């Protein structure tokens, strides 16, 4: 296993986030070199060679996404998706707070590669320190003529505009983000056409996650082939995994893709609190199917392996659940969330997410009916694959996996009107 770090490769100090510190670490050299010596196609070629996949959750190959843009188009937009809202995920925040210039350099390289004049950072409305750090860093970059008109006296001009969200989870879905950025309530759009063909204001638009874009400077410094050496064959590079829940030492750990799930829980995050045993893991943000403790022995944190085990690597948010937790009440936390965040556009998701939450709430109130678990199962099938965006699937998958893997707890709750685990969420 390589211990290469692309993000967490410096000591965080009071000013390690500023421009001078970033330059001391070699920052903006890749961008300067690209502007003076390389063509946009050179950047595309390196990103292609790197095998980089999107870090927002879907894992789409970044180079391929970029290649869908018509290079002759008069206007191309770039949006950095910083609407980090998938429960269990808190990595993009770290990049803004501690290494904002690496993101800005990534946006600049992508802008140069894709011939973008205006790039946007769509950042969560709730973010405070991340927003301030981004704005300070952008000001430094503008003052140093790294952004703006005729960057570093070349004919490349670029503006980066910070756009704040206003509390909607669905805006992390890329087409919803565009609708929001156009000033509307943010209903997602049907695809095709994909945003790379018709996106913001119907112009070709690339939307990439924060971590994805912030990886590009490393790729341009060391080469795509070097990046492809890290990780697994199909999942190159490192990822910033966030470990939360019932562990002794929660936090962010940058690891090679394909790192052992067991090791990250029991070594890096210090194992389960109070010496208790592991009950379950949600491996890639709240939308990804849950795994039982006895399933995780051979699991590695990469897309193929997790797919083989019926889950997903998603956004890298590993949520750890210890023995003694009530899975029925825990699922209600999620159904309430998805019911709240369903945007209201598609009937299966709007009605289905509310219905699932109502059924689970009824079970918890001690008024469960014998057919309730079957009704939950049926409702998930009525949602999955039948909505414009992935939020419907995201709402249904946790329900499906919880009731399949912890069926006895649901049956017990319905039959006895109470939790077999005393309704505990904390252990």
């Amino acid at each position, binding site marked *: 296993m390589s211990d290469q770090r692309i993000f967490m490769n410096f000591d965080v100090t009071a000013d390690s986030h500023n421009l001078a510190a970033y330059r001391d670490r070699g920052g903006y050299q890749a961008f300067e070199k690209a502007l003076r010596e390389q063509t946009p196609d050179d950047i595309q070629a390196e990103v292609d060679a790197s095998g980089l996949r999107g870090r927002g959750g879907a894992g789409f190959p970044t180079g391929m996404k970029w290649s869908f843009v018509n290079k002759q188009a008069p206007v191309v937009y770039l949006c950095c998706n910083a609407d*980090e*809202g*998938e*429960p*269990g*995920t*808190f990595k*993009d*925040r770290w990049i803004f707070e501690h290494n904002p210039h690496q993101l800005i350099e990534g946006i600049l390289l992508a802008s140069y590669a894709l011939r973008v004049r*205006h790039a946007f950072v769509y950042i*969560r*409305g*709730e*973010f*405070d*320190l991340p927003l301030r750090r981004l704005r300070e860093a952008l000001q430094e970059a503008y003052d140093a003529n790294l952004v703006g008109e005729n960057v570093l006296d070349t004919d490349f001009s670029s503006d980066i*505009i910070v*756009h*704040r*969200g*206003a*509390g*909607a*989870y669905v805006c992390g879905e890329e087409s919803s983000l565009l609708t*929001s*950025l*156009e*000033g*509307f*309530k*943010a209903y997602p759009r049907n695809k095709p056409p994909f945003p790379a063909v018709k996106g913001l*204001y119907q112009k070709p638009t690339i939307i990439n996650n924060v971590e994805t874009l912030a990886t590009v400077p490393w790729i341009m410094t060391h080469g795509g082939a070097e990046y492809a050496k890290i990780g697994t064959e199909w999942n190159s590079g490192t990822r910033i995994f*966030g*470990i*939360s*829940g*019932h562990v002794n030492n*929660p*936090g*962010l750990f940058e690891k090679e893709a394909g790192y052992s799930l067991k090791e990250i829980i029991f070594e890096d995050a210090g194992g389960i609190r109070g010496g208790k045993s592991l009950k379950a893991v*949600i491996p890639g943000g*709240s939308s990804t199917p849950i795994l039982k403790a006895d399933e995780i022995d051979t699991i590695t944190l990469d897309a193929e392996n997790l797919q083989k085990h019926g889950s997903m690597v998603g956004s890298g*948010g590993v*949520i750890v*659940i210890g023995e003694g*937790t009530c899975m029925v009440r*825990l699922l209600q*936390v*999620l159904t309430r*969330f998805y019911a*709240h*965040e369903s945007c209201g556009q598609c009937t299966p998701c709007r009605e289905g997410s509310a219905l699932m939450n109502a059924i689970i709430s009824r079970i918890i109130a001690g008024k469960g009916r014998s057919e309730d678990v079957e009704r939950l199962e049926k409702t998930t099938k009525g949602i999955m694959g039948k909505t414009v965006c992935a939020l419907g699937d995201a709402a249904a998958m946790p329900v499906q996996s919880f009731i399949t893997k912890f069926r006895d707890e649901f049956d017990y709750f319905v039959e006895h009107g109470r939790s077999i685990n005393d309704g505990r*969420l*904390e252990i």
Partner: protein
Amino acid sequence: MTTCMTEKFDRLRKVYPEEMTSSLVLPLLQLMQEEKGHLTESDAVFIAEYLDVPKIQVKEALTWYSMLYRQSVGKHVVKVCRNIACSLNGAERVLEHIEKKLGIKAGETTSDEKFTLLTVECLASCGTAPMMQIDDTYYENLTEDSIDKVLEALS
């Protein structure tokens, strides 16, 4: 007030490319809320007329985004995360403690209009759960003691 607000609108407008007028709906609503505390339908109409976009577009945005307030809120807005990582680390206990401390339930405002208490969904502090946000500031790894200190300092 209108002139002053329009001047601020004009400044923000310069940040966006000219063809993106419609993109200003959310930034202007946010700016207005910072000035006024909460927003009404006539504020939405004011923005629609300023931008020359359909009134229904701004009204819909106002009612759809959870961070836009349509009722008056207290001087400080306390938002307690109740999503999965915080729940596993005592979000219910935290909420109950704050409710007791402030003497109100989630969704309510204290009679002296100092605090509004809200529950919110994941704010990306899962590694430092449980957490709350008061106004803009995040407070993480909460304990009963740390909550008391923060609330007392603000009251």
